[in-house]
């Protein structure tokens, strides 16, 4: 029994793994691969239906590129703050981690605010999901993206709140790491959407 006690109850050796990637990080990468296909199918649908709506309003009637550029910039900045947050946590700077993560939450919420504004503005101008193929494919694509952002925001709020409830340190960084991966992915998807849906029509 003494040899067993010598192993220590409080500290169990990290278990053997056959690769250097933490389990949850690998899981997140695999999840993002599937999410990629999901957005790919929606973007594909949008592209197939591009130019095929039988009635308007049409994209050129509605898109406000300067405004959407601002919201894109906000989302990009949030990714930058995410990098700072992860770096802070890895260095055990907990209050900085909380600060930068709250920044991501705020910027993400601002982005969502822009989305809500844009959707209600388009609806005022007569674009609903039932109006035409553009409406259906646009709302489903950007709406799903918006839900992804909202889930990310909720997740980050949970992480910040949890850091007050139980001790959080650099050893927990992997949990922020995967949230950051998710966040960057959602940002990259937005870049693709912004390019393919908004910008391409204006070139």
């Amino acid at each position, binding site marked *: 029994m003494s040899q067993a006690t010598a192993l220590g109850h409080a500290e169990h050796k990290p278990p053997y793994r*056959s690769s250097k990637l933490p389990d949850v990080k690998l899981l997140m990468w695999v999840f993002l691969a599937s999410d990629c296909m999901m957005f790919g199918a929606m973007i594909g649908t949008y592209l197939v239906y591009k130019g095929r709506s039988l009635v308007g309003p049409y994209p050129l009637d509605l898109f406000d590129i300067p405004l959407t550029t601002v919201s894109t910039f906000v989302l990009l900045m949030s990714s930058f703050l995410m990098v700072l947050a992860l770096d802070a946590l890895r260095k055990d700077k907990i209050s900085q981690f909380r600060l930068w993560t709250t920044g991501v939450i705020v910027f993400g919420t601002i982005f969502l605010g822009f989305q809500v504004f844009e959707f209600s503005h388009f609806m005022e101008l007569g674009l609903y999901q039932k109006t035409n193929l553009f409406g259906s494919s646009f709302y489903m694509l950007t709406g799903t993206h918006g839900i992804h952002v909202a889930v990310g925001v909720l997740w980050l709020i949970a992480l910040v709140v*949890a850091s007050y409830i139980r001790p959080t340190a650099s050893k927990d960084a992997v949990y922020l790491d995967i949230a950051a991966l998710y966040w960057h992915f959602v940002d990259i998807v937005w870049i693709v959407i912004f390019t393919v849906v908004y910008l391409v029509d204006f070139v």
Partner: protein
Amino acid sequence: MASASASAPGLLGRPTGTRGISSWITTVDHKRLGILYLVTSFIFLLAGSIEAGLIRAQLALPEQQLVSPDFFNQLFTMHGLTMVFLAIMPMGIGLANYFVPLGIGARDLAFPRLNSFGYWIYALSGIMIYTSIFLGGAPDVGWVAYAPLTSLSANPGNGVDFYMIGLAINGIGTLVTAMNLIVTIVNFRAPGMTYMRMPLFAWMMFITSFLIIFAFPPLTIALVQIVFDRSFNFVFYVTQAGGMPILWQHLFWIFGHPEVYIIILPAFGVISEIIPTFSRKPLFGYPIMVLSGIFIGFMGFAVWSHHMFTTGLGPVANAVFSITSFIIGIPTGIKVFNWIATLWGGHIRFTVSLMYAIAFLVTFVLGGITGIMVAVAPFDQQVHDTYFVVAHFHYVMGGGALLTFLGAAHYWIPKMSGRMLSERLGKWAFWFLVPGFHIIFFPQHLMGLVGMPRRIQTYEANIGLDFFNLASSIGAGVMGIGLVLFLITLVQGLLRGKPAGDDPWDGRTLEWATTSPPPAYGFHVVPKILDRDPLWVLKHPEMLEGGHYQGDLAAEAADDEEFESFHMPGASWMPFMTALSIVMGGYGVLYQNWFLALLALALLIFFVFAWAFEGLGGEHYTVRKATGEIVSVEGGH
């Protein structure tokens, strides 16, 4: 020296019981979940077989009206849905759940609660789809549900909604299990278990999991588009708005073709375990078997439009997809050659498992050949949507996957239960099942060539179809008897079979190096892994000197700590509760009951948080490696 679990007490705590129904609902043990998958999928197989029996009864004679056209449409739709999504695919997943960890020397999957969640989503969504029968009628649009048959105007009833919502939920379960398997295979291989030493079944499940990751999302999107069209006035497939039915076909088949490889690759893996074991030789050409599996997986995404040769895609598209469909036949053929080469020169033991493997070889090769035939686009334009195609895919999926999994039952039930299935009873079942199968489906090639379309509730008399249909239906009776005999074999074996012992087959892979059934923690001690077929080389160490062994024996044997310490995961209610909330939400959306849907969403969020914060649970084990003796067990915290 066990001690109590230190996780949160009360309702949200991690349960610790190991007996009774609630222990099965809360289990995260990959072996129990594997058994749940296998039992559930077998029940759905029986349901699908009853549907098939009714179909064949209706079609036995021309111009019969045993069932109405509407009911007939529901029968073949549910038959396809059930067999593909609720029976055959989950059988592969169930076997993977049980035998991938054991095969790679792991004690469970990477994320045990996620595993449980995957199972419960499958079971509950399958039940949900079946409730459609009593709630206004099952879906009647074929398992492919081509738009605009699924539009609200063409199909106002609830059946289509059960299809769309039920299948979308079902897909979530499949996706998470695939993710779980990938992380397990990458991270949980025991020391010494390199990728090229893994059992081929583990490799095939690895590839299958990637196929699932990439193939299911397009299906999910297509399903959601139809749900949106029907429930929220979207216009994706509304012809009057310019919606294009062909988009559904593209999205569906970008999923649907990889799906059939998702079904067959696990079967290929099982065959690659059974044939070497009963030939007493290693699998011939293991690296090529791995590579060809990867190539099939990859090409599986490049052939989808061969299901659309008659939709007017044009000669360039049809030529491209004909060529890619030819190409995918090559690695498949190579696998068949390698299996025959494994048998060649061996000492072949004709157990029932091997008999099923041989039946697989014959049936699958025939199906593969008709596959090459339908890859010829002009030929397919004759036989598409006829019984020729029905014959083709039943040969590869029924003959291919089903026969294999029946063989897997004989092979692996001894390990799972500790009891052997009767070889004698098994042979009786085999000799009804296999000939019955061929009597059903071989005439269907001819029915298609003579001109009988699919999905028709009846056919004109005296135009050359009567004899083949009658023969096919008689075959269904024969195969049905075989299925009953198989059921009897199962029950007799599980209740009164001979004790199996650890290694009844003189096996080659790690699952035979532990008890039958294995303990909750899998292995007392994970054996040293020195080569492919790691158990076999431990039994026949002279093989290591023959140049087969590529590693560093000294380095791999150097891990000589006296004790091994590991953590076994704890049970949990959260996966089941989360799955239940999702299915509840599905009903909410289906009935447009937004209160129910929002309640389900709130519960979902609650249970996800409870899942995240319910604490570690489980136990830490310490084992003395030399003897396998458990030295201590403590609750997790």
